[in-house]
């Protein structure tokens, strides 16, 4: 039960902070601004533009939220020593870490859900209009799937969970707020570029040492590009096989779990 109360408290603390509201508004604005694209004659491709803005806003602001709020909600507890008061209660370090992560997971779920909801509304409104225009021009009507968007939202939530878990990991041994934030953003960048490291490791023209280094780092870092299934899930009638979606979800959940486990392992021996 302590996990539930800590998670609830963490979520409450986050939503009462202006930073969360600020990022949410920015994300929603970015999606809403894409409505201005109706002034351009992009035909059916307008739907992809709108979706790109929505997906991009979701990942950009979601990533910032995942990193900054995790540091704020986890590291600040250690720094301000509110963690001492809490850990002096019959709360184990495991419950503390898991409870904190659960609260942040809930926060990210709310953020993703709201962003996806607005994006879904915008796409659902524009799709029939663009379909009518396409019919007049004798071209193919643009395709949009709400269920695909919902699946994509779940995958993005899992991707953000990985980012949050990675931040937990770095924060568990960080000594300053700045270190935790900077290193976490670097970790995010490396995870986004993991496929570049894979390419370097597999390249013919790369030196042996660079290959080994790139290959090792590539294996140690989750590949966040695996979650870029937005256009296929949402705008492609062919969709994505269920097995593929489950594989991406499974990949993400395991990575998040391992990173949280490592965060707990470091935090367990941290003296406050």
């Amino acid at each position, binding site marked *: 039960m302590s996990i539930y109360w800590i998670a609830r408290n963490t979520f409450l603390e986050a939503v009462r902070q202006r930073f969360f509201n600020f990022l949410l508004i920015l994300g929603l604005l970015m999606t809403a601004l894409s409505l201005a*694209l109706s002034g*351009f004659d*992009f*035909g059916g*491709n307008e739907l*992809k*533009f709108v979706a*790109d*803005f929505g*997906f*991009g*806003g979701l*990942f*950009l602001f979601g990533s910032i939220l995942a990193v900054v709020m995790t540091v704020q909600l986890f590291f600040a507890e250690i720094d301000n020593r509110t963690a001492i008061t809490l850990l002096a209660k019959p709360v184990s370090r495991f419950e503390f870490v898991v409870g904190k992560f659960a609260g942040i997971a809930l926060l990210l779920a709310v953020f993703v859900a709201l962003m996806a909801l607005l994006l879904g509304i915008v796409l659902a409104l524009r799709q029939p209009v663009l379909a009518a225009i396409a019919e007049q021009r004798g071209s193919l009507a643009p395709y949009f799937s709400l269920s695909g968007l919902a699946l994509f939202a779940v995958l993005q939530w899992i991707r953000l969970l990985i980012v949050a878990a990675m931040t937990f990991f770095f924060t568990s041994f960080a000594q300053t707020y700045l270190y935790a934030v900077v290193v976490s953003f670097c970790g995010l*960048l490396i995870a*986004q*570029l993991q*496929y*570049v490291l894979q*390419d370097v490791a597999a390249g013919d023209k790369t030196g042996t040492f660079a290959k080994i280094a790139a290959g*090792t780092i*590539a*294996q*140690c*870092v*989750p*590949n*966040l*590009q*695996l979650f*870029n*299934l937005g*256009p296929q899930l949402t705008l492609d009638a062919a969709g994505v096989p269920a097995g*593929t979606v489950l*594989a*991406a979800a*499974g*990949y993400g959940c*395991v*990575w998040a779990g*391992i990173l949280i486990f*490592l965060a707990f392992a470091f935090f367990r021996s941290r003296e406050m």
Partner: protein
Amino acid sequence: MKTAVLKISKLLAVLAILAGTGICLNFAFAGDLWLRLRSRMPETSAASLADTAGTGMALGTLGGFRTVLADIAWLRAYSFWEKSSLNDCEALCALARTMDPQNFFFWENSINYVAYDFPNWVIRERGGWRQVSEAVQAEIHRRAYARGLELVGEWSQRFPESGHVWTYAAQMCIVKTAVIYGRSDFESALQFYERAMLCEKAPWFAFLAYANITRMQLPERRERSRDFLRERLSAAGTPERLAVIEDALEILSAE
């Protein structure tokens, strides 16, 4: 000394856990998924990224927000198109294509700009079609057509299964060769239609256009075209496509 050894052991243990997780997950989950997605990612060589303007853009490209940045680049290119600003429009179109190479729309419209709009802007800049000699105009259009064909080649590598790329090339060939040489190169156009018909996703009109152009423009080629269409019958796949090929053969047979 003992503390340093302990810290290094801890670090190695963490790296081992992370590497083990990565290897197991890549093997169990991510293999097929990544193969599916990799083809959609932009090239990561230094040469391809050299074209992108500015380090910030490169970082943004690699930072995973590339599709949004590509869209923004395209919107910017569109604004330069409205002002007939060739260099800026071309650069931003190239940037959009580099950052989001799987966007069909970017390719199609970039080639439209390059093949049809840019040569007319150049001619207008040099004094207009009344002032510029026909030979110079033809050369400008020839270079635009060559550049368009280069882009079609790159486009087809991104979308190897799409027949639309080659039907587009065929239409471009008909229009541009007419402008450059005074008459359309229908033979080359038919070769583009043949490439389109060989694609898995060949548009139906490719078959009909192929038959009509052969019948009306290159009647001496009728037998060759008929043989080609007959070969396509066995690979029709669906009854609808079979019917389209048969219609095309019928067109070829008509006088």
